[in-house]
């Protein structure tokens, strides 16, 4: 008997490109960048002073004021995105269900609150640290509050592999459905790290663009003049459902999550192997898992951060995986619009793939102006393209040499 298949029946998005998948998708297609000067803290002294901030978080009335007041921004995003995904899916998950689960990706959780408590400690001493700190800071706080809000009592796991976290989350959710452990899984990623010290730690690595005077132009994946990524924040959450269950209730199906692959470069904590081998192996593993030939793929949502190292290695990895077919592939990155959403970045790419498959429109790579001979691909430059997509790949690669790829397929 073949394993159960998993389909996306609901999408919730809270991103710098807009709240709700429709707003985010419209911004991606129209190339409306959400990158601005940072407003969440005073960023004057930093090398990089721009980011993608969520500016229109709509808090659902079902989320209490107390819950908002005792949780952090990354949890707020997850709660709002979950509400949107469930509403979109029109699924009724009975309270107390143990065959419903949650798998979230989150890189660092509530470090911004940790920073506040570090300041309290320095000013007032150890006994003034707030008792509520741990459940605010822990990366699985978002998933825990999702479970308690919607009374979901099955598997609840948070995976933390930096920028690949939410691809792993969706892959893990796929496995839960394939093995029959869950019939429905809320899965995706959430992150919000725009605070003085956490942002400053990335700033100190010199991995972010310093094109502060042109925020919307700063992130330039695969462009010769790229100089780093731009940080974003937000959450993207899917209702992933066993296909038969979804069909039986007449659900709107966006796409199938058809495969999951992962590798670990074991090369360098901060840089990919320059030849792209570890990335290529991740893509190949995902294609094998989905039983899909490379030539069947039309679109790759690249990790495409806009850093020198990632984009060149990723382009080489794509060529290794697809060979001559690489010249026929559309490869784009939506990070110039949303910024790099870190623990939610993979889920953002999956959103782009699922909606490309569903709508036949492929989002562009904004700011692609000067081709780099080291990473020549059809990057769908600057303008969305109408094109039928049957199979798409979402890549997410992370510090720690951690790579994960998800295969998205049109629902037959």
């Amino acid at each position, binding site marked *: 008997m073949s394993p159960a298949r998993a389909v996306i029946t609901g999408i919730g998005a809270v991103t710098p490109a807009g709240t709700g998948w429709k707003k985010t998708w419209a911004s991606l297609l129209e190339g409306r960048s959400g990158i601005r000067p940072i407003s969440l803290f005073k960023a004057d002294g930093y090398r990089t002073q721009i980011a993608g901030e969520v500016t229109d978080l709509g808090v659902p009335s079902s989320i209490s*004021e*107390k819950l908002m007041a*005792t949780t952090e921004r990354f949890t707020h995003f997850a709660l709002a995105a979950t509400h949107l995904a469930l509403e979109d899916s029109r699924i009724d998950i009975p309270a107390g269900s143990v065959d419903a689960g949650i798998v979230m990706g989150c890189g660092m959780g509530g470090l911004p609150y940790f920073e506040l408590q570090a300041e309290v400690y320095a000013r*007032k001493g150890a*006994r003034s640290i707030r*008792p509520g700190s741990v459940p605010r800071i822990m990366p699985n706080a978002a998933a825990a509050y999702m479970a308690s809000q919607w009374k979901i009592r099955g598997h609840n796991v948070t995976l933390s592999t930096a920028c690949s976290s939410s691809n792993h989350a969706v892959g893990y959710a796929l496995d839960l459905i394939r093995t029959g452990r869950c019939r429905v899984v809320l899965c995706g990623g959430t992150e919000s790290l725009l605070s003085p010290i956490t942002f400053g730690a990335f700033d100190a690595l010199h991995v972010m663009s310093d094109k502060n005077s042109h925020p919307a132009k700063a992130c330039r994946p695969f462009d010769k003049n790229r100089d780093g990524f731009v940080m974003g924040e937000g959450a993207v959450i899917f209702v992933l459902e066993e296909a038969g269950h979804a069909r039986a209730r007449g659900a709107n199906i966006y796409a199938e999550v058809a495969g999951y692959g992962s590798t670990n470069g074991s090369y360098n904590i901060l840089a990919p192997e320059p030849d792209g081998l570890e990335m290529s192996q991740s893509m190949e593993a995902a294609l094998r898992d989905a039983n899909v030939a490379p030539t069947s793929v039309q679109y790759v949502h690249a990790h495409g951060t806009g850093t020198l190292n990632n984009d060149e290695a990723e382009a080489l990895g794509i060529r290794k995986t697809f060979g001559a077919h690489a010249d026929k592939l559309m490869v784009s990155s939506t990070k110039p619009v949303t910024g790099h959403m870190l623990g939610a970045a993979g889920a953002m790419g999956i959103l782009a793939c699922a909606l490309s498959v569903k709508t036949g429109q492929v989002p562009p790579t904004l700011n692609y102006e000067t081709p780099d001979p080291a990473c020549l691909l059809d990057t769908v430059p600057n303008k969305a393209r109408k094109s039928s997509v049957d199979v798409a790949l979402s890549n997410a690669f992370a510090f720690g040499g951690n790579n994960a790829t998800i295969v998205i397929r049109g629902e037959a």
Partner: protein
Amino acid sequence: MTDAPRGTGEKDVSTTVQKIIADQLKMKPADVRLNALLQNDLGVASLDAMEIILSVEEAFGIDIPDEQAHKAKTPGDIVNFISQRIEQSSGK
């Protein structure tokens, strides 16, 4: 939680304690009755209780031992404890 200067009269103590509890629970201070049960009537969870005790300690500059904190069943219990400590420290 709240950095406003605190009075030390009985009424001031009550007002401050009610405001601290209301801030934690996101309710109106007037709804925090002094004889309400913290857990059953006001819905104070264990973590809320720890946050409230820390805020009270900071507001009045006193330590509340864990065993004393566990004995408090109502806002009034907290007010009484603080008032007694203030009286003791002022030598009344």
